[in-house]
């Protein structure tokens, strides 16, 4: 009992120390390609758009099963925030963004290794509370004055897509709040604080227990490409390449399309 406790504590401390090393951008002892069969060990740190949360978590588990000795660690947030963190030197191996524009801020800063590759596409839907109590059938309904609408801030990909869609449809919507990522906008619908929110189809699908997704034809005007890239200063570049390859693989695609993404 006593020794087990000590051993667990030591293992914990070692993990913390290792994480600290990675965090400081120092030489990552655990991240180099080891002698194991697949050549991938250590921690792979993946910065991914909030809308990828469920599907990438699933892909991460598959990846860990396929590469014993490798651990995938995720940082899910708004793509723009992730890009800022990467450009400020956050120790990440892979970056998966919800828009090419956000990806460009990372490649322009010289932080990408190679070129980004589009792995999926996403489209906007209108998320409404389960059962659609306000009878929202299309984009024009969002202009109804009695409707409270949440939108993503124009600085983040889902907000840029929403703006584009509304401009194409010549619809003028006054949202009550500009949320910082698509999940925050969705949660305002889940909480019942707003009557509708423009979110990705995949987000509405992931939250289908609480919300319904209303499709609208204008969403075709703002299809979001999701690019993925291995980062130049990746502490675990072998792991990074392997993870990116797994996302782009046939198996990866089937996980993503099951979540509602479209193949590029």
């Amino acid at each position, binding site marked *: 009992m006593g020794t087990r406790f000590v051993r667990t504590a030591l293992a914990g401390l070692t993990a913390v120390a290792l994480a600290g090393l990675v965090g400081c951008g120092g030489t990552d002892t655990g991240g180099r390609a080891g002698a194991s069969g697949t050549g991938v060990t250590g921690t792979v740190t993946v910065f991914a758009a909030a809308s990828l949360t469920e599907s990438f978590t699933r892909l991460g588990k598959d990846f860990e099963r396929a590469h014993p000795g490798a651990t995938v660690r995720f940082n899910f947030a708004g793509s723009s925030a992730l*890009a800022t963190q990467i450009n400020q030197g956050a120790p990440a191996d892979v970056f998966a963004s919800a828009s090419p524009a956000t990806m460009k801020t990372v490649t322009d800063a010289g932080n990408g290794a190679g070129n980004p590759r589009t792995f999926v596409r996403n489209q906007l839907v209108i998320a409404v509370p389960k059962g659609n109590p306000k009878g929202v059938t299309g984009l024009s309904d969002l202009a109804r004055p009695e409707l*409270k609408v949440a939108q993503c801030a124009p*600085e983040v990909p889902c907000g840029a897509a929403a703006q584009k869609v509304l401009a194409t449809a010549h619809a003028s919507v006054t949202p009550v709040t*500009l949320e*910082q990522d698509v999940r925050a906008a969705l949660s*305002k619908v889940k*909480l019942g*604080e707003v009557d509708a929110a423009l979110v990705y189809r995949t987000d509405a699908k992931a939250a289908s227990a609480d919300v319904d997704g209303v499709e609208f034809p204008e969403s075709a005007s703002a299809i979001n490409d999701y690019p993925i890239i291995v980062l130049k200063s990746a502490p675990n570049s072998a792991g990074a390449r392997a993870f990116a390859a797994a996302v782009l693989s046939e198996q990866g695609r089937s996980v993503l399309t099951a979540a509602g993404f479209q193949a590029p």
Partner: protein
Amino acid sequence: MVRTDDRDAAAPPPAGPPRRRRTQRVPVPLLLPAVAGLAFLVLPLAGLVIRAPWGALGQRLTEPGALTALRLSLQTASVATVVCLALGVPLAWLLARVEFPGRRVVRALVTVPLVLPPVVGGVALLLVFGRRGLIGAWLDTTFGITLPFTTVGVVVAEAFVAMPFLVIAVEGALRGADTRFEEAAATLGAGRWTTFTHVTLPLVAPGIAAGAVLCWARALGEFGATITFAGNYPGITQTMPLAVYQTMEGGDLSGAVVLSLILLTVSVTILAALRDKWITSG
């Protein structure tokens, strides 16, 4: 912590020797960590100043978004402070002067928002004042009022997070104040309300002022509860901290630095000015 003990300030300064002691040599084991501690607190602020895009500062300062957010921040923080004064001073008086069962529990509860992660505070506020909340649902169906996404919602979030600062400061002042004045007033025939307004309040005025300044500063910096409960919309709920966050999320680091500098300058200026005026510094 702010000094709120009035007897200290009111007592005549002790003569000679005790004052001298402060100029004694400081032991190195104390001095080194003290300086490191100071550097740790001040360096990040210095970082903001160093990284500021000074050339474009003038132009960015006058951007309408920045000014709107600043004005909203100042207004909501001030209203929140007034709300805290109106509710917090009586609450502090109750805690300091009235013996009632469960007083310790109440005192602990009052300080909870102080240690609660602000986002949790925002969620809690939603559960009560949100459209489906305990009170919010009734407000919505009866009066058609919803607090989230309104400026009033921002004030509610700020007041919730900032009120403990005021209550703690005022309660401390009340406990430190000499109750003999109040007793004297009572024996001279003053009612309880008159005693409170004419004796107790003036006695603890510096403590109330100190608490109000802290409360205002905390409200000005409030972020988590505001964005969770009140949302984020320019001109209505987007205060300075939210504007900083959104600018940062948009990848505009230098813009975020400029906004942070403005907020920092305003808070430091007012804290410094009011501290000198209201709070006796040692």
